[in-house]
Structures are given as C-alpha cells and as structure tokens.
C-alpha cells in the first residue's frame, strides 16, 4: 500500500457528510466532494438546485492526478506541499485543498460565488474533517472471507467472459 487507504463508515461517515452539507449551505457551491489521494470519491454532496454533475469518478481521478503532480512540483521547488489549487474559468471555479495526507476537498462553484467566503468555510470544514479522519488511523485493517472472492470471481466471469 503506497497511499493510506481510507475506510469511512458509520458515525464518522455521517459526520463527514454533515460537514459537507453545511459547507454546501454556507457557501452556495454546486458540488462538494471528498476524494482520496488515489482518486476515489469518499463522499459527495450537491446543491438541490444544481444540474446533474459531471462524472464524479473522472473528476476525482483528475483532481487526485493534478494534486499528485502539483505535490511533485512543490517538492522539486523545495516546498513540502502546495496545499491549495484554484482553477478559475469564465463561468465556474474548481477549488481543491488538502485534507491531511490522505484526502482532498474539492469544490465546484459558479464564478458569482465569492472565493473568499468559500475559502473561509472550506478551511473550517477541513479542520473538522481532518480531526475525524485522524480517529480512523487506529482502525484495524479489514478482510473478507473466501466466499467474497468466489462471488467476485463469478461476477468477473459474467463481465469479462
């Protein structure tokens, strides 16, 4: 395992979801994602008024790839990290900020939403989520029994012939 894997569940997951919900309401962003460094979506929330989001798998992968590349650049330039990325377009903004070593908070919003407000609330959310994720560090690794791989193999046969 190169990057830490996250297993969000139960109360922690619900609390993370609640923080994302509050962030959404306080800032007026369209979509709010917590993505792990491997590029998988851990949790996401979207505003009720927002149109259907783009493929979240793809967004998460590109955000994580971008963060990894930016991190490598930071190291080459003698920085430990560039924790924040902002991409501003004509109509919208993509804002990504590190949540500790294991995750990335990704916000997508209209240009009319004040960036300063988003940053202030995002930092509060990140502090809260970082604390929650720390509580997961001591959770023992999980494993599945043999029947899991048997069931999975059957599905693989169906999918790939």
């Amino acid at each position, binding site marked *: *395992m190169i990057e830490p894997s996250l297993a969000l569940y139960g109360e922690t997951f619900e609390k993370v979801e609640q923080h994302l919900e509050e962030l959404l309401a306080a800032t007026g962003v369209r979509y709010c994602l917590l993505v792990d460094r491997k590029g998988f979506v851990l949790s996401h929330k979207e505003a009720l008024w927002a149109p259907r989001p783009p493929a979240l798998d793809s967004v998460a992968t590109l955000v994580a*790839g971008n963060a990894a590349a930016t991190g490598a650049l930071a190291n080459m330039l003698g920085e430990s990290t560039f924790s924040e990325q902002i991409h501003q377009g004509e109509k919208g903004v993509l804002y990504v900020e590190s949540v500790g070593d294991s995750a990335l908070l990704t916000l997508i919003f209209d240009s009319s939403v004040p960036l300063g407000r988003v940053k202030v609330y995002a930092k509060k959310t990140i502090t809260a989520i970082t604390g929650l994720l720390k509580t997961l560090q001591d959770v023992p690794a999980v494993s599945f029994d043999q029947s899991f791989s048997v069931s999975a193999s059957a599905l693989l046969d169906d*999918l790939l012939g």
Partner: protein
Amino acid sequence: MSTINFAAREINCKIVYYGPGMSGKTTNLKHVFTKVPTHLRGEMISLATEDERTLFFDFLPLDLGSVQGFKTRFHLYTVPGQVFYNASRKLILRGVDGIVFVADSAPNRLRANAESMRNLRENLLEHGLDIKTIPMILQINKRDLEGALPVEMIRAVIDPKGELLITEASAHEGRGVFETLKAVSKMVLERLSQPT
C-alpha cells in the same frame, strides 16, 4: 490495499497497465472501453499528446457489480511508456492494487521491455513497495507481429525466475485483453479475502 468505503458500501481497486512505450497499454484500455456494456463503465479519459502518446495517463472506470452488498469498482490506468515521462509514471503508481505489465513482442523492443520492468521495480521501491507483494500479470502483447519473439525469450529478460502469470495478447485485435484483465482482477480481489 483497496479503498473500502463501508458507509457507501463500496470497494475500489486500482489497476495500472505498465510497460514500454508503444507496447499497447492504451490499446488494451480502448478495447475494454468498446466492448464492455455502457452501463458498466464510465467515460475513458486520455491525457495524450497530439500524436496519441500518453502524456500523463489514460483512465477507465469499470463497475463489477455488487459483491456481498459491496459495490465493487475497478479503476484502470495506463502510464506513459516513454522513458522521459518517469515523473508521471511514479505518480500513477500511487495506491496501486494490481499491475498488468504489457510487454512488446517485437525483436527490437526486448531491451525496452527489460528496462521498463527495471523502472517499475525502482519506482515501486521508491514508494517502499516490493514488486513481489503486488498482484501482477505479464501480458506478452503483439503476438500477431511478424517475427514476434518466443514468449520464453521475453520472459527470460523480464521475469527470469518465472514468477509471474503470463497471458498472450494481440490487443489491437482484442485477443487476450479480457483474459488479462480478468486474471489481474481476480488476484486483486482474492487478496481482499486473505488475512493480512
């Protein structure tokens, strides 16, 4: 290990296609993309140069379906094969759960195969990973090529101890592509069932 999200009941596995430039990594993914039903896969993303060389990575998400109540998903990636893109290759290996090493059967690519395998070993080591601990398949591609080298000759330079499972393929015809993906996927999923 794979990312397991209990609350959303998801298991996510990352499989990386590695190998020398032009060995057929992207072709493998393109074949999967065209043959898997649309409701079981997402869009394929290719970050490539104008001449279709992979610049950063190709990406294809695949849904296996629900296993014991867990939605199981594979993310397939390719790395750029060209020697000078090593910084990008290293990044793609982050969090890898399984590897398909795509070797080229052309006689003039034997050395490139060996160098790419050495590069893979070095890049994994930089992340503190031993290549022997990761589920990996050796796909010998371009078997339809005129003058294709014997499989054993290619294995001798890439995997001299004969430790890897081998599949033969002609990815541009689709031959061996699914067989390879299935083999590596099974290895990754079996690992989830093994006590750590």
